C-alpha cells in the first residue's frame, strides 16, 4: 500500500467523520425519527450523497484511471442470499439502536458514551460471524472486491 493511499484514507476519513458528526447523526433522535418516518433528514441526506457520488463516479469512469492505484475497478456484484440475510440482521440492530458502525464514533465523540457499548458489540458481532462461516469462503468484508469486480 502506497503512502498516498494511506494519506488519502486518513484525510477522507477525517472529512467523512466530520460530516457524519456535524450532521447530528450521533444524536439518537436524528436516525430514530427518520426510521419512524417522522423526519426526512436522513433520507434527503443519503439521497444527496448517492446522487453526488453517482455523478462523480460517471466522470471517473470516463477517465478510467485512478490517481494512485491504476485502472479504476468499481465493485459490482449480483445479489446473493448472504447479502439479504445479513442486511436483515443488520437492520434489526440499526432499527433498535438507531446507529451504525460509523455513527457510533459520532456518538462517542460528542459525549454519547453509550455508543462505545454498541461499538464493542459490533466488534463482537464481526468476530462471531467470522466463527460462523467457513474461513476460506469470505475472510473479509471486502475481499470480494478481488476477482469478481468488473472493470469500469
Amino acid at each position, binding site marked *: 500500500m502506497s503512502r498516498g493511499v494511506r494519506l488519502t484514507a486518513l484525510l477522507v476519513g477525517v472529512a467523512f467523520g466530520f460530516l457524519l458528526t456535524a450532521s447530528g447523526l450521533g444524536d439518537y433522535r436524528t436516525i430514530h425519527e427518520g426510521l419512524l418516518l417522522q423526519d426526512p433528514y436522513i433520507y434527503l441526506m443519503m439521497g444527496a450523497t448517492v446522487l453526488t457520488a453517482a455523478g462523480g463516479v460517471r466522470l471517473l469512469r470516463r477517465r478510467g484511471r485512478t490517481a494512485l492505484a491504476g485502472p479504476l475497478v468499481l465493485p459490482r456484484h449480483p445479489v446473493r442470499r448472504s447479502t439479504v440475510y445479513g*442486511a436483515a440482521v443488520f437492520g434489526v440492530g440499526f432499527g433498535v439502536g438507531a446507529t451504525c*458502525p*460509523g455513527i457510533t464514533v459520532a456518538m462517542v465523540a460528542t459525549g454519547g458514551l453509550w455508543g462505545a457499548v454498541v461499538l*464493542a458489540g459490533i466488534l463482537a458481532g464481526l468476530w462471531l460471524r467470522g466463527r460462523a462461516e467457513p474461513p476460506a469462503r469470505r475472510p473479509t468484508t471486502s475481499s470480494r472486491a478481488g476477482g469478481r469486480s468488473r472493470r469500469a
Partner: protein
Amino acid sequence: MLHLLPHQLPWWVAGPGIGLCVVAMYGLANVKLGVSGGWLQLLFALQRRPVTEPWRIWFNGGLVLGALVAAALGTAAVRGYGALGAALPASWLVPALALTGVTIGYGARWAGGCTSGHGISGCSVGSPESLAATATFFGVAVVVSLLVHLVTGGAV
C-alpha cells in the same frame, strides 16, 4: 469548545460532502469507502492476524479524528441514549445496546458491508447487491422501529 457549527448541517451540505468522500476514495485510491470493514481489520490486528487492507484502519482513524474535530467545533453534545436510554434502566441498557451492536456487526459481515459500504458506496455505482442490501436493512429497520414504538406505547 467552540460554537462554530450549526445544530445540524443542512442535508444539502452534508449529503453532497459525503458523496465527494466516496468519489475521492474511488478516484484516488481505487477502493470502496466503508466503515465496518475497518472495524474488521482492527479486529484482525487485535487477534494478531494479518491486516489485509491496512488503508481501512487509516480511514477509521481519520473518522475518529474528524468526529472529534466536529465535536470540538460545537456539534451539540449527546447525553444518554435518547428515548431508549430513558425507557430502560442502566442495568438493562448495557446488555440491550451490546446485543444491538452484535446484530449490527454480525449482519454487516454477513452482508459484506453496512450503511456506508453498501448504502452509500455500493449504491452509488449501482451494484445490485448493494441496492438489495440497502433496501433490506432500511425496510427492516423501519418496521422494527415502528414495532418498538407501538409496543412501548410511543415511549421509544
